[in-house]
């Protein structure tokens, strides 16, 4: 890999003066596909931005050279993606490539189904990288068997917990493997003064106003709650919140909350605040292993002797491990609207572009940036970012736009991050998939997001001790009566079709 990189770098240097020298065979390949395309393809990309500001030109121009394109990004901040994408869909103001990440959002689903976008299914096998997309991923990304865009390939399950290792050591507690141990740690982190300052100023669990990406869904996996829906052998569907395991999770969280082991205002805390609390040493448990390096960066100069340990294997006592999978390894779609991409030739050219982005060279540009400037490999061949600030400005915004995150694996020089990465890959083995990912329900498309509010609100209330089990059961009944039962039936019907 290193060798290829050197040659790539050499090419890049030469490229600035002699454009044709490097891309030679690449261009030839493209010419074969689309006869009249020699000039760089001009394309627009409506893309989601996960960082505070868009990337600088550095990496973009290199990507353009590599793929022989001229890219105009139209960045949508992640926080406002729902309204921006739905309005873009409604007004038809789209781009050649549209990044759609909210696959369950009703308006995204209905516009996909209305035929606004190209069906790319038949074309994928013509491209060497795209043809490698696994059939399961294609299935998970399809709606009623039609693939309306190139799926973003992600790891199956990325969740896990992060603990303050230095606090654990100080209190003589082991890295947990069961939920009881997690509870005990939350208690000890709250009551036993883990930072040793003699003041009662710590809370075990930090959390935020989100049931899915914060601790609740992860804990619910540990309890054995199905991911989204449970399907029994007769094809009967039960929503996750109608199971005993969900109740157990709520009781667990409620106990944490009542005893003060869970941040008291978690229901109104934003992600950044949750990270700040952790970085300031107010909390000791954080959900989301992918954030491990940003937590360390945030805690710099604030927490001396900070040590972190990511944990993914926690059981409810039966020794079995489970973790929920988001979208079954699909992070969304790169879709091509027919209003912008008028001909098949144009579509093929865009597919070629995405295919090229999965090449190792392009992958490394979007992951690490330029070797020697943004990152380097240390003596062990481990990847190491040289200048975090420069990396954040030039490269980071691209890393979440990579069409595939699983095509190559890097060894990270930061042992904590490397461990987290390994655990995320290990999660594949016991990931719990959501059976409805490839299924479609008209009622869910229309009302699902709103109905979900009923359950979310009821769950928060129960955890915070403001309602009883009967109240929660009543909320579930309301959900059923307002359309939930219909969703269940529609999923069962759709499931039956796939089983034949």
């Amino acid at each position: 890999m290193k060798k290829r990189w050197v040659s790539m770098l050499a090419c890049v240097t030469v490229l600035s003066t002699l454009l044709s020298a490097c891309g030679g065979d690449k261009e030839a390949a493209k010419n074969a596909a689309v006869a009249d395309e020699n000039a760089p393809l001009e394309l627009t990309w409506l893309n989601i931005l996960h960082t505070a500001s868009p990337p600088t030109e550095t990496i973009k121009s290199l990507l353009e050279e590599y793929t022989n394109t001229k890219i105009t990004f139209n960045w949508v901040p992640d926080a406002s993606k729902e309204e921006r994408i739905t309005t873009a869909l409604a007004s038809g103001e789209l781009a050649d490539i549209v990044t759609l990440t909210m696959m369950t959002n009703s308006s995204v689903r209905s516009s996909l189904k209305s035929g606004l976008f190209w069906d790319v299914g038949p074309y994928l096998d013509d491209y060497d990288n795209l043809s490698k997309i696994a059939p399961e991923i294609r299935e998970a990304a399809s709606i009623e068997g039609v693939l309306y865009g190139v799926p973003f390939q992600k790891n199956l399950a990325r969740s896990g917990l992060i603990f303050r290792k230095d606090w654990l050591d100080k209190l003589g507690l082991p890295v947990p493997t069961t939920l009881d141990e997690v509870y005990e740690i939350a208690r000890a982190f709250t009551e036993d003064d883990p930072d040793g300052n003699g003041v009662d100023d710590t809370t075990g669990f930090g959390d935020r106003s989100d049931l899915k990406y914060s601790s609740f869904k992860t804990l619910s996996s540990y309890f054995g709650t199905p991911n989204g829906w449970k399907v029994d052998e007769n094809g009967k569907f039960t929503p996750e919140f109608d199971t005993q395991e969900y109740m157990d999770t709520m009781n667990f969280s409620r106990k944490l909350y009542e005893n003060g082991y869970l941040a008291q205002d978690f229901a109104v805390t934003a992600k950044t605040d949750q990270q700040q609390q952790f970085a300031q040493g107010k909390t000791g448990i954080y959900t989301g292993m992918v954030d491990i390096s940003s937590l360390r960066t945030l805690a710099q100069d604030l927490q001396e002797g900070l040590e972190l340990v990511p944990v993914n294997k926690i059981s409810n006592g039966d020794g079995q491990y489970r973790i929920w999978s988001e979208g079954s390894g699909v992070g969304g779609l790169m879709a091509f609207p027919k209003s912008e991409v008028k001909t098949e030739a144009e579509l093929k050219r865009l597919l070629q572009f995405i295919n090229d982005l999965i090449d190792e060279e392009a992958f490394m540009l979007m992951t690490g940036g330029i070797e020697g400037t943004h990152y380097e490999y240390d003596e062990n061949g481990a990847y190491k970012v040289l200048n975090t600030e420069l990396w954040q400005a030039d490269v980071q915004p691209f890393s979440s736009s990579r069409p595939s995150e699983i095509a190559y694996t890097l060894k990270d020089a930061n042992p904590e991050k490397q461990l987290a990465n390994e655990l995320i890959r290990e999660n594949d083995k016991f990931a719990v998939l959501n059976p409805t990912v490839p299924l479609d329900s008209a009622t869910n498309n229309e009302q699902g997001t709103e109905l979900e509010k009923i359950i979310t609100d009821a769950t928060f209330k129960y955890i915070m001790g403001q309602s009883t089990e009967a109240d929660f059961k009543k909320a579930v009944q309301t959900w059923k009566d307002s359309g939930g039962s219909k969703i269940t039936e529609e999923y069962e019907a759709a499931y039956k079709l796939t089983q034949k």
Partner: protein
Amino acid sequence: MKVPSITAPSNLNLEKKKKNAFLTAVQKYKLLYLMILPGLVYFIIFKYMPMGGLVIAFQDYQPFLGITGSPWVGFKHFIRLFTEPTFMMLLRNTLILFALNIVIFFPLPIIVALMLNELRNRHLKTWIQTIIYIPHFMSWVIIVSITYVFLTVDGGVINEMIASMGGQKISFLTSPEWLRTMYIGQIIWKEIGWSTIIYLAAITVVDPQLYEAAEMDGAARLRKTWHVTLPAIRPVIITLLILKIGSTLDLGFEHMYLLLNSLNREVAEIFDTYIYTAGLKNGQLSFSTTVGLFKGVVGLILVMASNKLAKKMGEDGVY
């Protein structure tokens, strides 16, 4: 018999005259009329033409098919709105918050303006004015964030104070019972200074002779305020009240959206936030247009009613 034959042409004449009068007026004040033009164009383009979009309230609007291609569904969305249990909740929350706005917030700027008017120290007066104006220029995000920092249970200043005095911490941000207090408190903080401007301006035009006359009659300060200043600014108060009522159901989307969370939804969800989540976030464009239309119609009826009432009470009204 002669009467109609005379009146008819005279009526015609009158109309002609009226028309001519308008035309001559236009001719006479060409420049002035030219100056209205941009405003008119603005209203036509940005306020009247979008109203055409309201037709999607009667459709199952699909962006891909457009207004012409989407199926017509009659009053389906209206029926859904009025039969959904959320409707009563939305209406209740909206009306209660509106009432708080009118009863608690509306009189405050008048009182503050009257108080400022009594201040004899010019410097102190301008200084106080400036200070209470400032929050108006902060966005709701900042106001709500400041509130969050002050009120959060996890180390918020207020709660720390309560705890240090031996009290029980209060979860202001997640309790439904605190939502309305917080809402109105934030509005008072942000807008009280700014809202005094018009009243202060109105007070300055009160004829000083009236005060002198009142003084001759032996009126003290409070008397003068009650019998001279207040009646003098009455038309302004009425006009502002009508305008305020017109925006009844506009309680400030941004403000409420920031305060809204899973725990206080039953008292905090209002029409504005509902339109946003149902329409823009979930993409039910037709349904949220219906909600918006309903809101607009209620606002219109309220303005017309209050205007009429004001006229009955002998005031000018707004139109």
